[in-house]
């Protein structure tokens, strides 16, 4: 298996903290969240298995090529267009949330338009790079931040002020009414494999299909990941008090103290690391979306330079900046919940589609 594939899978597990996953799960903390998580994990592992394995059957090919080859044209274009927009929405959610976080935690005096401009300029520049280059950037950022983020997670676990009893209260409500929102939120941590839609173009060598063992491993890592992102904020801020927090994880990071560290307040290390994670996550998502949408749009050249991607990415920036004004935090949160549910639907559809295509390809 290619190591870059692992990075793509890990990326979303880290990004879920920014993507409002903990907030959704915490909202449903007394509503059978534990079982919802397990359902979400099981479902997404199934999607994972089917989608990744079918993509690996077409080495060096992205989803647009495969879809175009095996489905009628009208279907391929409309399907790819919608899927592409989905990737852009994912990137947009991460960006909008993180812009809000930076404004709240790092610099409240900065104008939100300017912050959006800064983030978007870097994400757009990144999305326009060649596909393999985005992977190199991903690798560098992950290798730098992953150990530190894991360190913070571990540090937060071994704090005497962490209340295990508060977390156990959640477990008592495992079997209460299950909500589809938390199933969707739980599955978000796993959707890194969807990036294969484009990144499979780089994996040109024929690889063996993914083994069940690997899927199980991903499942365990992901489950631990989701439970940390749900439980630790509750352990620090209490089962009743946590509901008031907008960004549970960032408030939790502020409750961790490094007595002997270079910087005493863990919050700042956490924030700076997460700037990197959110930017690369938004870059990868929007790059995937861009490549997919590019494949259905006509090419448009001016002075020998392809302009279509630039137009698409500018459009994306415009929408993001507008959304900042028309989607305030509360509405964005509602929108994200709908997106999570939509993610489940798309996953279901994609799975059946891929099975059908693989069947057709065999004939």
């Amino acid at each position, binding site marked *: 298996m290619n190591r870059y594939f692992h990075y793509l899978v890990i990326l979303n597990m880290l990004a879920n903290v920014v993507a409002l996953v903990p907030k959704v799960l915490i909202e449903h903390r007394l509503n059978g969240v534990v079982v919802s998580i397990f359902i979400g994990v099981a479902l997404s592992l199934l999607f994972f298995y089917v989608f990744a394995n079918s993509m690996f059957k077409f080495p060096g090919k992205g989803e647009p090529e495969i879809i175009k080859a095996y489905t009628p044209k009208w279907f391929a274009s409309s399907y790819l267009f919608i899927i592409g927009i989905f990737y852009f929405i994912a990137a947009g959610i991460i960006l909008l949330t993180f812009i809000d976080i930076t404004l709240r*935690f790092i610099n*409240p005096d900065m104008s939100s338009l*300017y912050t959006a*401009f800064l983030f978007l300029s870097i994400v757009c520049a990144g999305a326009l790079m060649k596909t393999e280059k985005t992977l190199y950037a991903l690798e560098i950022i992950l290798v730098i931040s992953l150990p530190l983020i894991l360190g913070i997670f571990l540090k937060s676990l071994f704090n005497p002020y962490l209340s295990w009893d508060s977390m156990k*209260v959640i*477990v008592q409500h495992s079997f209460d009414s299950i909500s589809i929102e938390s199933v969707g939120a739980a599955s978000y941590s796993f959707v890194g494999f969807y990036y294969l839609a484009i990144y499979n173009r780089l994996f040109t060598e024929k690889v063996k299909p993914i083994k069940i063992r690997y899927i199980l491993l991903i499942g365990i890592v992901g489950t631990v990941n989701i439970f940390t992102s749900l439980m630790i904020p509750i352990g620090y801020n209490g089962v009743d*008090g946590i509901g008031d927090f907008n960004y549970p994880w960032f408030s939790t990071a*502020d*409750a961790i103290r490094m007595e002997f560290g270079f910087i*005493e307040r863990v919050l700042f290390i956490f924030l700076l690391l997460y700037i990197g994670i959110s930017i690369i996550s938004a870059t990868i998502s929007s790059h995937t979306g861009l490549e997919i949408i590019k494949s259905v749009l006509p090419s448009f050249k001016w002075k020998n330079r392809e302009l279509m991607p630039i137009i698409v990415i500018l459009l994306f920036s415009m929408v993001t900046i507008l959304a900042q004004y028309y989607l305030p935090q509360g509405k964005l949160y509602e929108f994200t919940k709908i997106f999570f549910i939509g993610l489940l639907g798309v996953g279901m559809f994609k799975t059946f589609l891929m099975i059908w295509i693989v069947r057709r390809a065999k004939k």
Partner: protein
Amino acid sequence: MFPYIKIIFFLVLCSLLVSCGFKDIDKRSFVVTIGIDKPENKEEGYDISLKIALPSSDPKTQGEEFIIHTETARTVSEAVRLIKAKSGNELDFGHMKMIVFGEKLLQEDITQIMDWFTRRRDIQKIAFVGSGKPTAKAILELKPKGERLPSNKLFLFFGETGTESPYVTTNYLFHFYRNLMDRGIDPYLPIIETKNEEFEITTMSVLKNGKNAIVLDKEETKTFNVLNREYDKVNLKIEQENIYFMLSVDSISAEYTIVETKNIPYIEYDVNIKGIIEESLQQLDNTKIDEYSKMVEDVFTTEIQNLLEKFQEKSVDPMGFGLRYRATHNGTEEAKWKKWQSIYPALQFRVKVQTDIKSTGIIE
């Protein structure tokens, strides 16, 4: 392709869009401690005192100086706004590491005032909280000897890098707020007193519904810290007719389970102590080590039993028995909470202390 034009364009655009957040460190006044008191002659509102450090350019006298501004207002933010008008620099709460509540303030519910602390982004959630006796302002005004930074002594008391004493109860803002909000666990505050121009932090108070419910004395505070945090840098004094020795504890583990029987539910509290004898007024006998252990167990069991029963009597629960009950039982939170409130007054405590004295020190 990154031609210059693009970069210059980008940079110019950046400069145009930027709005200010730029404020130099020397143009900020750092609040190190906040004190909140009840105003003497008013019914409503608070006396807010801010201790602001004044850095000096001479590294030798750096930060010894401070000023205290006090304002009375209905809310904290109002008072802060009034103080802002008095100070030439921008007030910066980023380094505020100590929050002191006046003793009188705790006679009323303080939940409302906590809102300001948790809402503000620039207030550290790892700030220490404490209760000032007689007033918070008195604590702020005290300037103990050898203090290189304003309030540094307090930080050393509470931060684990300085003194480690079983009498000092450390509590952080996030932890205090969590216990205040969660049902089934009550928050506590160390009480900071001034004596002979020095701080004395040996006692603590436990709050119930945001109000001061009970004040623990010195020994009770120690026992509480031993139980609650498994604090092992502690000495236990054994004093009987013809024997007097101090046990220096190496490690402590304290665990409890709530046992529900048909008639009377009880809490089984298991405490394991390992330690060595540090000081003795008599010749000790190595063979009698079991006897000494027994003495320690007896003394400590009564101490714990008394403390827990005292909590029960005042129906406060700083140990979080209620939360444990919620964590181990099924049902809706409301129902569990009601049930627990009926169980707690009748609860029995069965404390079991096991002591393992490893040696009598390096002499007999």
